[in-house]
C-alpha cells in the first residue's frame, strides 16, 4: 500500500512538472509578439550562451567526430572500404552527433545557469516582484531565454558538425590511411549531392538542434521558476534542469529521427 502510494505520488509529481513545462512553453509561444521589446536582451542572451559554451563544444565535437571515424573505420577496414569513411562521418555527425553533443553541452553550461539564475530570483522574491508590477515573468524572463537557445543551438551545431568532421578526418588520415583529400571529397559529396541545397541529414540535424535548444531553455527556466527553499532549493533546481534536459535530448532526438526516417520515410 505504502509503496503504491509513494509510487503514485512520484508519478503525479512527474506528470505535474511535465505539465508545468508544457504550459510554460505554450505561454512563451503565446508571448512571442512581445519579442521585439525583448530583442536586445534576447540577442545578449544568445551571444552569451554561444560564447560560454563554444570552447567546450568544439573540443567535445572534435573528439566525437574522431570516435565516429574510429568506430566505423574499424569495421570498414575489415571490408577494405574505408573510402566511404568521409560520407559516414559527415552524415552521422550532421544527423545525430552534432546536435546531441551541442545539446548536452548547452544543457550543462547554459541550461544550468538559467536554472540557477531564475531559481535565485524565485527564492528571493524577484519573480513575485515582477508579478506585483504586472510584468509577466514568462514574457520578461522565459521568452528571451527560450528564443536565445532556439537560435544558438542550431548555430553551434553547424560549427560542431564541421569540427566533428575535421576530427574524423584526422583519425582517418593517421590511423586508417585515408588521405584527407579522399575523406573531404566524400564528405563534401555526401553533403552536396542531393537535389536540394543540402541533404535531408543536415536539415533534420538542424531541426533537432532547434528542438533541443527550445527544450533545454524551457525545462531549465521551469526548474528555476519552481525552485523553493533558499540556496538548497536552487541547487536542486539546477540538478533537475540538467537531468531533465539530458533525458529530453535523448528522447526527443529519438522521436525526431524516427519521425523523419521511419514514419515519413
Amino acid at each position, binding site marked *: 500500500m505504502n509503496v503504491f502510494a509513494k509510487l503514485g505520488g512520484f508519478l503525479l509529481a512527474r506528470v505535474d512538472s511535465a505539465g508545468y513545462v508544457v504550459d510554460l512553453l505554450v505561454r512563451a509561444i503565446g508571448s512571442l509578439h512581445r519579442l521585439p521589446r525583448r530583442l536586445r536582451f534576447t540577442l545578449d542572451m544568445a551571444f552569451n550562451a554561444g560564447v560560454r559554451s563554444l570552447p567546450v563544444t568544439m573540443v567535445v565535437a572534435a573528439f566525437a567526430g574522431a570516435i565516429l571515424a574510429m568506430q566505423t573505420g574499424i569495421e570498414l577496414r575489415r571490408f577494405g572500404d574505408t573510402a566511404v569513411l568521409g560520407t559516414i562521418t559527415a552524415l552521422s555527425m550532421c544527423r545525430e552527433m552534432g546536435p546531441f553533443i551541442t545539446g548536452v553541452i548547452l544543457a550543462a553550461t547554459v541550461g544550468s545557469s538559467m536554472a540557477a539564475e531564475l531559481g535565485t530570483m524565485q527564492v528571493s522574491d524577484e519573480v*513575485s516582484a515582477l508579478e506585483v508590477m504586472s510584468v509577466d515573468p514568462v514574457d520578461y524572463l522565459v521568452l528571451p531565454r527560450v528564443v536565445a537557445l532556439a537560435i544558438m543551438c542550431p548555430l553551434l551545431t553547424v560549427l560542431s558538425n564541421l569540427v566533428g568532421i575535421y576530427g574524423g578526418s584526422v583519425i582517418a588520415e593517421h590511423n586508417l590511411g585515408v588521405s584527407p583529400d579522399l575523406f573531404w571529397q566524400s564528405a563534401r559529396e555526401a553533403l552536396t549531392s542531393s537535389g536540394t541545397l543540402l541533404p535531408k541529414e543536415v536539415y533534420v540535424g538542424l531541426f533537432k538542434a532547434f528542438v533541443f535548444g527550445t527544450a533545454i531553455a524551457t525545462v531549465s527556466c521551469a526548474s528555476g521558476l519552481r525552485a523553493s527553499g533558499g540556496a538548497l532549493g536552487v541547487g536542486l533546481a539546477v540538478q533537475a534542469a540538467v537531468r531533465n534536459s539530458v533525458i529530453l535530448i535523448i528522447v526527443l532526438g529519438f522521436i525526431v529521427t524516427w519521425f523523419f526516417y521511419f514514419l515519413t520515410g
Partner: protein
Amino acid sequence: MIELRDVHKRLGGRQILDGLTLTVPEGMNFVLMGPSGTGKSVTLRHVIGILKPDQGSVRVDGQEVPAMDRAQLMALRKRMGYLFQNGALINWLTVAENVALPLREHGRLPRAETDDRVHEVLRLVGMDHAAHQYPPSISGGMRLRTGLARALVTKPEYVLYDEPNAGLDPIISQQIHELIVEVRDKVGVTGLVVTHSRACATFCGDRIGILEQGRLAVEGTVAELAHSDHPLARAFLGGDAD
C-alpha cells in the same frame, strides 16, 4: 481601505490563515506582527492578488480582489506598491532602471516624464546619487530604499511593506522607519507593514495586530498594545523585546 474578512488559506498541507479578519483604515499604517512562518507574507500576497483565499473575502476599496480579472488586477497593482524583503531588485538593471521598470513595462508615459518621475522618487528615498549603480554592488539598506522607490514610482495609494528592516543595523533601520512615516504623512499612503521589530512597530504604526495560528490574536493602537497584558503583545512589544 483594505479589508480581510474570515480569510482561510491552506498551503503545503498546512492551514496558514484560519479565519483572519483585519482592517487597514485609510491613511494609516497598520503593523502586522507575529512569529516567523505564521503567514504574514502570505497575508500580503492575498491583498495584492498573487494568492487567492480558499474561503473568505479580501477587499480593497470595497472591490473583491480574488474576483478581479487581469485588467482589474493590473489596475489594482498600479495603485498598490509592494516592498519586498531585501528589495527584490533585478540584478542586471541599474537602480534607476529598476525603479523605472513598472513605468517602462506599461509604457504610457513619455521617456522624459518617466525619467523625471524616477529621479523624484529616488530623491525622496535618498538614492539619487546611486542611480547608475547595480544592486549587487550596493548595501542592503540601499537596496531596500531602491525597492521602496520602485514601489512608490506609480504613485500608489497603498504600500505593503514586507519586513522593511530585516537584516539592517539599527541606524539604517531607523532611516527606513522615518521614510515609511514620511510616505504616510507627505505622500498620503496607506500602509500595511509586516515586521518583527518593536522599534518599527511603535515608530511607524498607528494600529498593531499580532498574528497567531492564522488569525489576529490581539489588535489595537500602539498605546493599547504597549500596555496590554496579552502574552504575545508583551513578547513583541514588551520592554525586553527587539
